């Protein structure tokens, strides 16, 4: 609960800091605020399930773990944003405060105990993201992305609200525990179709946010159009929060009608895997590939959700963490490389931009390679164990065909992730030595070391939650 209060207050403080002449203060202060929030988050560790705000918000170790991932990712992303020093038109104070506010939304989504809380969380997160997507205001693609994201997002939110309304109609409550009681008693005796419809619509709204197919159409354009730093933010924080919310919703309230929704999620998972992986193959732009790769990773996470077995919780936490680490590292390197090279006035974000990276910048090439290996799920990286846990959770339920398709698709994944590695190590190119700021370097090292560390010792954090 502390991070909600802290971030709300500190977000406003950040806005005021924007009035000061010195823009240099913003970056360190935002990092400090995030560190404070992160520390505050873990104050409640092992305090048992606590309910706040008239029983609308729940704090347990799972909430705190997801909060930890989200806040740590935000910390790393802010650290590599570099204070937007090189962009005269940027408004760092506004960006940072929006980021802090949006984290409040993410945390509400993670810990909601009441559907209204979920809705408010989704809105807080989304509205901030719409603005940040369009923050490069003179850029056509950025504007297009923001508008597209906003229109589609607003529509999805509407559908979600509709779903919540129907659920209220069926059960008479917004409260997850009450709904759970209804599902396991009344629903079993007299099935209410209103409830089914409500759940479906609610799920559709949420699946839109995590960019699952067939609700993914906004993703490639928005990810590509948004400034890379906010693409990173979207693809890690929004996705983690979205899956945390989906997991809480389904595992808490709807296990009673597992037979109804699991097949829906399974089909969507397979569709998402196919769209994500096959879509990524045809891309020439690395950034757009990462958008499709984000879609495909939503597919893997959905597999864990489909099973909803004992290992699922661990699988989702671990996978979100592994995915966030690698994504931050990959986009971090992309930002450095594309800043150096331009193509028709735009940053060059194609695979070819990485040609010959390893020659002058072995460090960046290595970071990129580890990130790609992890996303591809090659052993001895965190990403491998993420996939392993996901497949395990499906196997625990006895579902074999979904992981079998996923395996086929992850072979496709190797194809496009390796293109970057090949470009940086094996192709000829002329990239001068890129200067990496110390803070930036620390983040990249941290992401790489953690990816390898969790690859070697996946049990490190096990049993904590």
């Amino acid at each position, binding site marked *: 609960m502390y991070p909600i209060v802290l971030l709300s207050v500190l977000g406003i403080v950040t806005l005021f800091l924007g009035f000061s002449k010195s823009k240099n203060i913003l970056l360190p202060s935002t990092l400090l605020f995030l560190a404070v929030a992160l520390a505050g988050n873990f104050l409640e560790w092992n305090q048992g399930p606590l309910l706040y705000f008239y029983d609308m918000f729940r704090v347990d170790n799972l909430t705190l773990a997801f909060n930890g991932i989200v806040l740590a990712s935000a910390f790393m992303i802010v650290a590599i944003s570099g204070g937007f020093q090189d962009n005269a038109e940027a408004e760092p104070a506004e960006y940072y405060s929006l980021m802090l506010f949006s984290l409040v939304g993410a945390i509400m989504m993670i810990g909601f105990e009441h559907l209204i809380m979920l809705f408010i969380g989704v809105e807080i997160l989304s509205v901030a993201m719409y603005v940040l997507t369009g923050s490069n205001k003179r850029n056509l693609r950025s504007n297009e992305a923001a508008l597209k994201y906003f229109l589609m997002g607003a529509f999805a939110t509407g559908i979600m609200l509709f779903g919540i309304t129907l659920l209220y109609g069926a059960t008479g409550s917004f409260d997850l525990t009450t709904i759970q009681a209804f599902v396991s008693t009344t629903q079993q005796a007299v099935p209410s179709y209103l409830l089914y419809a409500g759940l479906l619509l609610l799920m559709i709204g949420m699946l839109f946010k995590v960019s699952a197919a067939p609700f993914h159409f906004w993703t490639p354009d928005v990810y590509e159009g948004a400034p890379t730093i906010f693409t990173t933010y979207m693809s890690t924080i929004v996705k983690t929060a979205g899956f945390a919310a989906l997991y809480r919703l389904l595992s808490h309230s709807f296990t009673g009608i597992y037979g109804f929704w699991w097949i829906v999620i399974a089909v969507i998972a397979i569709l998402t895997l196919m769209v994500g992986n096959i879509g990524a193959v045809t891309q020439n732009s690395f950034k757009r590939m990462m958008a499709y790769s984000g879609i495909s990773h939503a597919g893997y996470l959905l597999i864990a959700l489909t099973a909803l077995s004992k290992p699922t919780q661990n699988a989702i936490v671990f996978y979100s963490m592994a995915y966030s680490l690698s994504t931050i590292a990959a986009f971090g390197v992309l930002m450095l490389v594309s800043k150096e090279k331009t193509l028709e006035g735009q940053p060059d974000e194609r695979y070819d931009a990485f040609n010959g990276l390893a020659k002058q910048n072995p460090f960046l090439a290595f970071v990129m390679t580890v990130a790609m290996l992890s996303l591809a799920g*090659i*052993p*001895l990286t965190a990403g491998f164990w993420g996939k*392993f846990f996901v*497949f*395990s959770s499906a*196997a*625990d339920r*006895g579902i*074999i065909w979904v*992981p*079998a398709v996923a*395996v*086929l698709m*992850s*072979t496709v994944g*190797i*194809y496009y992730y*390796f293109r970057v590695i*090949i470009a940086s*190590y*094996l*192709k000829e190119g002329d990239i001068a030595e890129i200067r990496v700021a110390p803070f930036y370097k620390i983040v990249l090292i941290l992401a790489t070391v953690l990816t390898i560390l969790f690859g070697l*010792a*996946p*049990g490190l954090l*096990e*049993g904590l939650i």
Partner: protein
Amino acid sequence: MLTLLLILLPIVAGVITLTVGANSAKQVALIGALAELGLALFVWSQFDPAAGVQFAFKYNWLASAGISFGAGLDGISLVLVLLTAFLTPLIILSTFGHTYKNGSAFYSLILFMSAALVGVFSATDAFLFYLFFEAALIPVYFLAAVWGGENRLKVTFKFFIYTMFGSLFMLVALIYLYYQTPGTHTSDITAFYQLQLSAKSQGFVFWAFFVAFAIKMPLFPFHTWQPDTYTESPTPATMLLSGIMLKMGVYGLIRLLLPIVPLGLETWGLLAVILSVIGIIYGSIIAIQQRDMKRLIAYSSFAHVGLMAAGVFAFSITGLQGAIIQMLAHGINVVGLFFVIDIILDRTKTRNLDQLGGITQMAPQLSVYFMILLLGSVALPLTNGFVGEFLLLSSVFAFNSWLGAIAGVTIILGSVYMLRLFQMSMFGPKSKWAEGFKDLTLSERAVLLPLVIMVLWIGIYPGTFLSISEPAVKNLLQLVGK
């Protein structure tokens, strides 16, 4: 503990090689590989064939999930570990005539590869096996992709994706098996042996394993990556691929497929043997047509591994023992042959048989070594190839006499393409490419001599090696009640 040392030593040597400069990388890597060989020989001297898995090491990796870092050696493992330890220093020594740019990276990758291979052969935990199985791929991929020929990027990429695709199926099968184990689940391979799976699920697991290992070996029809990859890779990588890595597939069949899904093998074994036999004949016929020497050996290797697989699928003590001794023999022969071809390429700048000829006059020593290795490969009695092929063919014959007869043709076809290779390159009028051909240097002799000694040793007294694996093979057969 010794097993762990066997795995760690090449890694440590590899890291040291990486840190010393490019100038001394060769020597450091060679010393590391020789130390590994010494350690392996020491392990052999301490090894008791009858005592089952020895030198075991177990460290709880994911304690709650029952996944451990478990390694140990039984007879079957030890033979292959010895092969790896024996070939690695020779492969490193074989490069002494070349200079590779970024030498330290090159040699450390070879050592990392050999660590992963030892890991595969000694893992007693299924997930550890999988990890090493995959990990072996990465160094050899970079060896081939960075130091390979013109089309290397395309070819190695296909190779990588192809083999990755196969092993992922194995992963699904392993996860499935893991969830079938009782209690809190364990991934110990011996626990998998105890599972009583239904015939239907055994069928699925059979195919998952089959695809994984058939791609790695490769068996028909999963072989399309192999000739290109062997041809485009730099010779040391080709040696690693054909000499040792191919054996991972055969070893996987013996260690995982046979004992875990015997019922699946009963249902599908005939089809598997038929595919293997098709590979033998198909590979041999294509080999006869080849002009490129490296490609010729690549196809011959494809044919040989088909015979090994057929013997394994026949599932008898002769078949398994034949496959194990043949793995040893094939590893030695193929590394020797690739090296001879590399020597010829180095001096004449061509691998094309049409352009070669008359080397015998210039290089008598090379001809002798070449001939002995080649005869080993065509399975002449008293050479190492004979023992393996004889045992393998007799097991396939016992399995199904028609298939045995067809597979037997390999002996004839094998001598056709091998003798043709020798005749066209070494005999005949001296071609202009062979002008000024120098005979072997000291370091080249140092590679070929141990290989040739092994060809004759295994050919004359195979008992040394057969006795290592025999109790383990019997044990395996007993396990499934054969």
